[in-house]
C-alpha cells in the first residue's frame, strides 16, 4: 500500500486536480517543474541555508518533563512555535518563494485562516522583494488582528473575503479567483496540504523537515528514532503531514490526527471533517469534506481559525480511509484548557490549533514507557485575546 502520491496525482481515491481550465496552465507548469526545481543543487543549498539561518532550524525537540509526569509517558514537543514568525507555516513559504522565483513569478498571493500562513508568506515576500496579496476571511481578520497588522507592516495587501462564512474556505476561493484573473506573473502559495495536485504533495514535502529532524533528535535523545505515537492537529493538515511524513511507512508508529470538534461534533458548530464529512471535491481535489446531501459545502466552526476549514487534504483522506492514521477530535473548551495546562506546566503558550493536539493526551492511557511526539505547530501570541476572554485574565 502506498500512502504517497502516484504519478496521476492521486492518493488512493483522493487527490487529482479539479480546476477550471483557466487555472490549468499555472497548475500544469507547477506539476511539471516542482520536483525538478526542488531537487536542483542550487535550490537545495539556498533552501537549507534559509531554513537554518533565517527560520532558525532545526527546531528543538523538547522533552516536556512535567507534562510527561502528568500523563505517565515521555512527551516530546516538536517546537515549530520557535520558528521565525511563530509557526510551521514558514517551512513551506520559504520553499515556495524560491520555487516561484525560479518560475519567473513576481507577484505572490496567499489565503490565510489564523494569519500564520499570511504572515509567513508576507515575510518571505519582504525578504525577496516580491509583491504580496493575502486573502483573509472577514471574521478571521477580526479575531486575529495582531497577525493582520504584522502582514501590513511586512508590506502585504490584506484583502477581506466577504462571501460565505467569511473564513478560511472563502479566503481560499478568493485567492483562486485572483489566480484565474492573473494568469501570467502570479504564484499562489497555498498554505495547507490542500488544493489541486501538486500542491498537497509539494506542501507536505516542504513540511517533511519536521519529521526528518524529529527522527534524528529522537535518536539522539532516546536511542531510537521510532516513537510510539505522533500527534498533530489537522485543519487542512500541513503540520500533521510534516510531522507524519517520515513515519508514515513505519506502521509501528501510531499516527494521531486531531481535528477541531468546535462546540461538539453534533452541535452544528464543528470542523471535525472525518466524522462529519463525505467524499467529494473541494478546492481542486477529491477528498473528504463537510457538505449537504446536495454537495454544498457546510460552513465549519472552530475557536481556532487555523482549523476552521470544512475539508482535509487528500493525503489525510487517504490515511484516514486506509486506517493508517487515527482521526479524532477535540472541542473548543478542551483545547483552551490544554493550552492553559501547557502554559502553566511548561511555560509555553501554544497556539489554540496546537492545543488541540495536546488536548488529546488527556484521552489516551499510557503505561509509562511510551515515547510520544506532539507537534507544537505554533505559538499562542496571536490567540491571547481568545485566551483572555475565555479565562477572564
Amino acid at each position: 500500500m502506498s500512502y504517497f502520491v502516484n504519478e496521476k496525482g492521486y492518493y488512493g481515491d483522493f487527490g487529482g486536480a479539479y480546476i477550471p481550465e483557466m487555472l490549468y496552465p499555472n497548475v500544469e507548469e507547477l506539476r511539471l517543474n516542482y520536483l525538478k526545481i526542488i531537487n536542483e543543487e542550487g535550490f537545495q543549498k539556498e533552501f537549507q541555508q534559509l531554513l537554518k539561518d533565517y527560520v532558525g532550524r532545526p527546531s528543538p525537540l523538547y522533552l516536556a518533563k512535567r507534562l510527561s509526569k502528568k500523563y505517565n509517558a515521555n512527551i516530546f514537543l516538536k517546537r515549530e512555535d520557535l520558528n521565525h514568525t511563530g509557526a510551521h507555516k514558514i517551512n513551506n513559504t520559504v520553499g515556495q518563494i524560491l520555487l516561484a522565483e525560479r518560475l519567473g513569478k513576481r507577484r505572490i498571493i496567499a489565503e490565510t485562516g489564523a494569519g500564520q500562513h499570511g504572515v509567513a508568506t508576507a515575510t518571505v515576500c519582504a525578504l525577496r522583494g516580491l509583491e504580496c496579496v493575502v486573502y483573509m476571511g472577514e471574521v478571521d481578520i477580526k479575531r486575529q488582528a495582531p497577525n493582520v497588522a504584522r502582514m501590513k507592516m511586512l508590506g502585504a495587501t490584506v484583502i477581506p473575503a466577504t462571501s460565505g462564512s467569511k473564513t478560511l474556505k472563502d479566503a481560499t476561493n478568493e485567492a483562486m479567483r485572483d489566480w484565474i484573473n492573473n494568469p501570467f506573473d502570479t504564484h499562489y502559495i497555498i498554505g495547507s496540504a490542500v488544493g489541486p495536485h501538486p500542491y498537497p504533495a509539494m506542501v507536505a514535502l516542504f513540511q517533511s523537515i519536521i519529521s526528518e529532524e524529529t527522527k534524528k533528535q529522537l535518536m539522539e535523545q532516546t536511542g531510537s528514532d521510532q516513537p510510539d505515537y505522533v500527534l498533530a492537529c489537522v485543519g487542512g493538515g500541513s503540520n500533521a503531514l510534516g510531522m507524519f511524513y517520515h513515519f508514515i511507512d513505519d506502521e509501528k508508529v501510531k499516527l494521531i490526527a486531531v481535528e477541531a470538534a468546535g462546540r461538539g461534533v453534533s452541535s452544528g458548530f464543528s470542523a471535525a471533517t472525518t466524522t462529519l464529512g463525505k467524499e467529494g471535491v473541494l478546492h481542486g481535489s477529491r477528498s473528504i469534506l463537510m457538505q449537504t446531501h446536495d454537495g454544498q459545502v457546510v460552513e465549519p466552526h472552530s475557536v481556532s481559525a487555523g482549523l476552521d476549514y470544512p475539508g482535509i487534504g487528500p493525503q489525510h483522506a487517504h490515511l484516514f480511509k486506509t486506517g493508517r492514521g487515527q482521526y479524532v477530535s477535540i472541542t473548543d473548551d478542551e483545547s483552551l484548557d490544554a493550552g492553559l495546562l501547557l502554559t502553566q506546566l511548561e511555560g509555553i503558550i501554544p497556539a489554540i490549533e496546537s492545543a488541540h493536539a495536546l488536548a488529546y493526551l488527556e484521552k489516551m492511557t499510557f503505561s509509562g514507557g511510551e515515547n510520544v511526539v506532539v507537534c507544537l505547530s505554533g505559538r499562542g501570541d496571536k490567540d491571547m485575546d481568545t485566551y483572555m476572554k475565555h479565562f477572564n485574565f
Partner: protein
Amino acid sequence: MSRLKQLFQEKKNILSIYYTAGYPSLGDTITIAEELERCGADLLEIGFPYSDPVADGPIIQASSKIALDNGMDLKLLFQQLKDLRRTVSIPILLMGYVNPMLQYGVEEFCKSCAEVGVDGCIVPDLPMVEYEELYASVFAQYRLSNIFLVTPQTSPERIQKIDGLSNGFIYLLSSSATTGQNLSISDTTEAYFSRIAHLKLNNPTIIGFGISSKETFDKACQYAGGAIIGSAFVKSLDATDLKGSIQKFMKVFKPEVEQLS
C-alpha cells in the same frame, strides 16, 4: 440530429444566455426559459448553484447564494424541468460545479438530463482526464454533450484533444478571468480568436465570459458561432417584473424579435 448540432448548422450569431436556477425566486426556472426563447435566445445555460463557485465573479456568486437560500438543489431542478420540452424547444445545457454532480451521482445526473430533455452540460472544474476515463461513456450512453472551456493560455495540443472529446461546441473564454467582467477585445484577443479559427476544429465555438453589450456580442460573433451572456443577464433580472426585465434585456440583442407582452 441533436438539437445542438442542428442549431449550429442552421444559425449564425447564436445568442446563448446563462441564468442561475432558483434565482430570483425558486419557481422562476421554467418561466425564464420560456420567456428567453420567446425573446429570441438560441441556447440556454441553466446554472445549478454551488456554495463555492471559484470560476465566478460577484454577480453569479450572489445569484447562486440566493438560489441556495431559496432551496434550490439538483433534485428540485430536475423536477422543475420535468415538462420542459412541452414549452421550450431550443437546446438547453446545465452548468455548474462538479461536487453537486458527484453527490447526485454522475450516472443518475446524466439519466435525469436525458429524461427531461437537457442536451448537455458545462462543468468547469471537471478535469478532462477524469471525464475521459470515468464519465465519457456515461455521457455518450445518454447522448449528452460535455462542453469544455478553452482560454488564451490553452495550448494548441490541448485544444485538439478537447476538440476530440467534444460533441457540441467548444466554449472559448475571451480571457483568463472569472465571470462578469467587461470584455475589451485587444489585438492579442483577436490574434487568439483567429488562431482558434485557423485550427479547423471539428466542433464549432462560442465565446463567453465578459460579453455584456451588443457591441461585444457582435464582435465575438465575428470570430465564433455566437456568444454567451451570463452575469449581465443575471444582473438585469428584476423579481418584481421578471418577464418585463427579460424583454427589456433581450430587445438590445434581438431587436428584430417582436416583443409581445
